[in-house]
């Protein structure tokens, strides 16, 4: 089937197999490899992208369903040399380790902050519960969002035992 999608502001018209997931379409047909496959089953969130402005698991969306839609991935998060505020906060707060969950995590945080300018800690955790991160243990990710929303003082730290 022929589809027309706008990804990160660029329009693509492509012939795509009807059983192709949006995730594979982005990664293999368009070379947009920020979104990752961690399970292909909707559980882990590594494949999270925006579909018409909402975070979805692109491993459970058919590419043909995105015909006429707008898709945003982590690649569209910052234009130009500067990182976006979310990306900067992740960087400042050591919220990235292996980085495999990061592209999905950033998108989930982006949707959260669009709808909720000052989320509580519980709301932050809920927003990213669908994004598994095996490395960080999440604390520094939650702190990145706190920092981003003016609450750097609520962050934890490391204590030195004399």
């Amino acid at each position, binding site marked *: 089937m022929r589809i027309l999608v706008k990804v990160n502001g660029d329009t693509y018209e492509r012939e795509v197999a009807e059983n192709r997931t949006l995730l594979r379409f982005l*990664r*293999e047909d368009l070379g*947009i*490899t*920020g*979104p*990752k*496959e*961690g*399970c*292909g*089953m909707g*559980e*882990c969130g*590594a494949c999270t992208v925006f579909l018409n402005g909402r975070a979805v698991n692109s491993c459970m969306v058919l590419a043909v369903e995105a015909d006429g839609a707008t898709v945003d*991935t*982590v*690649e569209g*998060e*910052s234009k130009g040399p500067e*990182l976006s505020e979310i*990306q900067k906060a*992740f*960087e*400042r*707060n*050591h919220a*990235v*380790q*292996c*980085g*495999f*969950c*990061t*592209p999905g995590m*950033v998108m989930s945080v982006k949707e959260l902050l669009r709808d909720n300018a000052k989320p509580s800690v519980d709301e*932050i*955790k*809920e927003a*990213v*519960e*669908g*994004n*598994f*991160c*095996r*490395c*960080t*243990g*999440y*604390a*520094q*990710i*939650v702190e990145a969002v706190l920092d981003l929303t003016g609450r750097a003082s609520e962050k*934890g*730290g*490391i*204590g*030195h*035992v004399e």
Partner: protein
Amino acid sequence: MLSDKRPSELELVGKSPERSDDVEKLTGSATYVSDMSLPGMLHAQLKKSPHARARIVRIDTAKARAMPGVRAIVTGDELDYRLGLYVVDKRILARGEVRHYGEAVAAVAADTLMQAKAAADAIEVEYEVLKPILHHMDALKPDAPLVHPELGSYAYMAAAFTPQPGTNVANLTKLRKGDTELGFAASEWIVEREYSCPSVQHVPMETHVAIAKWERGDRVTVWTSAQSPFTVRNLMCIAFKLPHNNVRVHIPYVGGGFGGKAGIGVEPLVAVLSRAAGGKPVKFQATREEEFSLLPCRSALTYRLKTGVSTEGKILAQEMTLYWDSGAYADYAVNVTRASGYSASGPYEIPNAKVDSYTIYTNKPYGTAYRGFGHVEFHWALERHMELVAQAIGMDPVEFRRKNALRPGSKTLTGEVITEHTGNVLKCIDKAAEAIGYGRITPAEAEREKKTGWKIGKGVAALQKAPAMPSYTATAVFLKMNEDGTVTVNLALTDYGQGTYTSIRQIVAERLGFPLDKVKVSFECDTDKDPYDWQTVASKGLLMSGNAAILAAEDLLKNAYDTAARALRAQECDLAHDGEKVYLKHHPSKAVRFSAMAVGLALENGNGIGGPIVGVGRYIAQGLTFLDKETGEGNPALDWTYGAHGMTVEVNPDTGEYRVLKIASVYDVGKAINPEIVRGQAIGGMMQGLGTATCEGYIYDKDGRLLNPSFTDNKIPTAKDLPLEIETYVVETPQVDGPYGARGMAEHSMISVAAALGNAIQKASGAEIMHMPIRFEDVWRALNARESIDNWITKSPTGHCRSAPVQKN
């Protein structure tokens, strides 16, 4: 301590600069092997065994070979190779017999993934199903069938391991210290208990994936998501009998490993497929389900402890018997057995000790290294045991731990003498206890108990670990100065998220006296271009590569000074430098810039001197020895890192539901090179430890089929599973031979979390838990003295569950 400075003079070490790999990872431009595609690349799919144990009667690939797009099919019969790091017991594809559910029996490479899948489905395999050996204790029975009848013919590392041919024991590590009989005879109390835990998955978010190209002239190039490029190369060269300079292994960004990618994985398989397909590159990426059953997991453990204690609460004797279920293959798992053997008593002094640690073959997916390397599992047992022994003798468990903790002058199980520099486990225990208000319930907590009806309990558990590695483990680091005076660092230790490169960058910049932005650690590893490193495992990376990096920096400076001395017509001893230039101490205006010397200095008349400035640093572990095979005596430890967790939980005494309110973790890291990275490792490992403690584990049906090979029924912790409060502390007892005093800590955070949880739950509710993970139902059963469910292995329900993909032969 490898350092040129006093702690107060350090400018970069001890700070928390951002990670050097952040920008790529945050913008989606970091390339992982799973993102890669090469021109003409084929895709591989596997035919896997639906049985735990079966004889392969016949494999018919004719139909599959005729299918569109199929370029190569290989079966075990064509592949006469064995692989393994310590015991060479695994084939690339099963041959003759399948030994676990999910084992690969044939592989297809085709133009597209769909074609490969269709062809793999079309391969016909006829099996004669055999009765599997599922429980490792059953495998020890004299009449048990043998998983590896040919064990006696396998190659293995004889200095360290002792396979028992004719049995299912792939290795037995023994240790004898003092006289346990005398010790028990002198004991006031003797407590004997047994603890256990199931196999679990590492769950790197990026599953195993590799691309290989086997070109004419037997030149093999591999791109892989792995931890140890040189180990992949070495094992491939040994198996395929290829010269080492014919094989090149690249490792770009890696989406997590945790030990599961420490050794060799799917690389040989894609390599033989590529060879069969005439040299076209072939890619294989495991699905999440394959990650659970085709690729290795962590071994299950049954740990029996018998402890004799004096009237004063001193341990006089301890017998430690560890039964490790390595599953179908033991190539890496034997070393877990060995490491847990010599470390089995944890951070405590045992004057009379006996350890027998068995690696046992069964018909299940096979075990390998996993963060903590056995210590997570046996500390679960040991630190529960310390609690129960203390309880039995009527002593406070923390007091009991303090009394028996290793301190300067103590002797470890292998006879190593602990010194002032080894680290301080007492400080860790005390801080962990203090941070949670151990031993009392605050008024606020009492109020909370009243409101909820749930009971609050607090527990502490200590830990220790040394790197488990060959005694002669070595590494090297190259520094190359670029034309503008910046420096690029090459090493084959990989950074798959743990942040070592950022710390190495700080170390190099600190030693060079350069600003951080002048130093770059190059991410992609390449065995053709990077200097050797044994493996990225064991929490030895920072110490060993950090030392090599310091030595490399010193070598680079020496080369620069040599050129500068000639250029300035001075003696090297009269020179000093800053981030830009080398100058005469006495006349700082007389200087030569690094950028001028970087690729060779041109004198006024055009003569060149010096040549490109590089630095080479080599480091090899010092003073380690093989262990005596009968007594275990010797020096196995590069360094010992100690730690402790304190945990506060609340438990519903009726239902067994519980919540972790607080965890405080303390590690003696020697020196925190980058405190925020230390904290990231501390919390990341702690959460992984909580996963192991609360919900993770393999569940099999009675035929040995894995019932939960997916995230649907093998949950891992999410952000919502964070304890309400988390505190992280470091003790800094400098490591005498560590870079700026640092020692490893990235595995340690996962160790003893489960025991702290078990101890706190028992304190809160009285539930005596001997098996982890601790599910609510397990607490409920313990509270009601109901028979515990061992559905992790034999008594599990038979049949299909939503998360197990439908099986086809």
